């Protein structure tokens, strides 16, 4: 019983961390209609920028997160404008493949600047909190709280601000939005900034838990993608639900299978979802 409960808690924790880049991935998909796999490198870049701000400049976690968000957002927009944007007219598949190439390029730029070694954030060591048999790390709790705040801020932004509403309008019906004077090109830039920025923040949150290296983002890419597919590609609440479900599924799988099979859970989840409900848990139409 304790084992199950601990797995459930761990799953929700990792799920919440995956949810942040998954929101970014889904937002970009909703507005631009292609899967941007370069978010893996955005997550890595975010993790390294925050590490530089934290371990290098001595900033606490929250300002380091903010810097990571801004820098990754700008990197995402620049990368989009100079590479992916030119390919958009050629169809989603071409852009998706190009984003994989972009991912490799950016990942290696990170290697060039920061080296290949693992790095750890400069954080106070703390003992796990114990609730009876259950253990929770204070760092994990902080990350969970940060993830929750970021998600809440994103929902409020989408629901109540002019830009958020314009983003949803373009995602739902770009032509009709244009008749209303919404410029999809501007919305696309804002969306990429947000999506890349959120991926960067996700990279930091994931890195805080363990350590970071140039493959930090790449290792969670499948989980992020699986979460977005599970929840329904293009649906922001779906990305959160998908990430939490996937996190729990991965942890539960660990009880019965060796840890090496953890990534398989993502593949299996995508497979099951695409077979039985291709539009995902909260998706409105088939992707």
């Amino acid at each position: 019983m304790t084992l199950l409960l601990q797995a459930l808690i761990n799953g929700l924790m990792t799920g919440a961390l995956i949810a942040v880049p998954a929101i970014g991935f889904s937002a970009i998909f909703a507005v631009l209609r292609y899967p941007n796999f370069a978010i893996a490198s955005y997550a890595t870049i975010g993790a390294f920028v925050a590490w530089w701000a934290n371990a290098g400049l001595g900033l606490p976690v929250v300002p380091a997160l903010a810097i990571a968000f801004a820098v990754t957002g700008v990197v995402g927009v620049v990368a989009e404008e100079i590479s992916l944007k030119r390919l958009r007219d050629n169809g989603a598949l071409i852009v998706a493949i190009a984003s994989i190439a972009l991912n490799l390029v950016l990942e290696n730029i990170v290697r060039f600047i920061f080296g290949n070694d693992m790095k750890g954030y400069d954080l106070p060591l703390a003992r796990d909190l114990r609730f009876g048999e259950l253990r929770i790390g204070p760092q994990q709790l902080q990350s969970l709280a940060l993830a929750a705040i970021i998600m809440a801020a994103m929902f409020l932004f989408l629901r109540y601000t002019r830009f958020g509403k314009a983003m949803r309008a373009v995602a739902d019906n770009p032509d009709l939005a244009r008749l209303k004077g919404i410029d999809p090109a501007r919305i696309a830039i804002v969306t990429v900034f947000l999506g890349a920025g959120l991926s960067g923040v996700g990279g930091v949150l994931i890195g805080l838990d363990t350590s970071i290296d140039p493959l930090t983002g790449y290792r969670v890419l499948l989980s992020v993608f699986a979460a977005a597919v599970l929840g329904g590609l293009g649906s922001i609440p779906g990305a959160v639900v998908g990430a939490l479900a996937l996190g729990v599924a991965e942890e539960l799988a660990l009880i019965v299978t060796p840890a090496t099979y953890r990534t398989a859970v993502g593949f299996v989840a995508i497979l099951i979802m695409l077979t039985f409900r291709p539009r995902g848990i909260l998706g409105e139409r088939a992707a």
Partner: protein
Amino acid sequence: MTAALTIEGLKLDFYGVHVLRGVDFAVPVGSFTGLIGPNGAGKSTLFNAVSGLYRPKAGSVRLGSVETTSLPPEKLVAAGLVRSFQLARGFPKLSVFQHLMLYGAGQPGENLLAAMLRSAAARRREQELTERAFDIARRLKLDHVLDNPVTALSGGQKKLVEIGRALMAAPKILLLDEPMAGVNPSLTEQIADHLIALNRDGLTICLIEHDMALIKRLCAPVIVMAEGKTLTQGSFDEVASDIRVQEAYLGRRH
């Protein structure tokens, strides 16, 4: 004859494919003009170019006597050129009423500051638009579904919302892209009656439609497009008896 809309030498390419290869015609003020042609003739693309969604490569579009080529879509709507979409998808999360209000012309309340100040002018305009929305909904028999999300409507009702949305923008000329396609026969009759009534009230309409019986009943003049060009125009009987039109639809006889 004065023209509500004049299209001259309009050309448009997609990646080297010449989709529009020189379209010329005029829609007379107050007319119910029909635009027909086989699939792939470029009718919907023409609407997209005229309404500012696509940028033409060459040629000109005039609204009345005003040159409007390459104006952004929202400026064209403000100038009175409003179009409907063949796929009447709308915004899935909005209700019928919200759709109508969203496309009401000139809302001061759209500006956040004005909305917060709730100025007298903004409130008055909103009141006017609300009345207008109810009026249009009654006219299109959508008044009993005003609060439903558009996703809950039947295909035919979605088409009516699409027309209602266009009417809210106070059009001078209405471009309708197959408003009756996929609609059951009795609703088709209703939509046709609505359109006839609107046209009698002075609204200029340009209609893309594949149902020739409808075109024959509703439209004069009828413009025929084929392979990205205007083929001919005239009354329905004139174009229907034109051998080139028959060839365009049925393929050339060898």
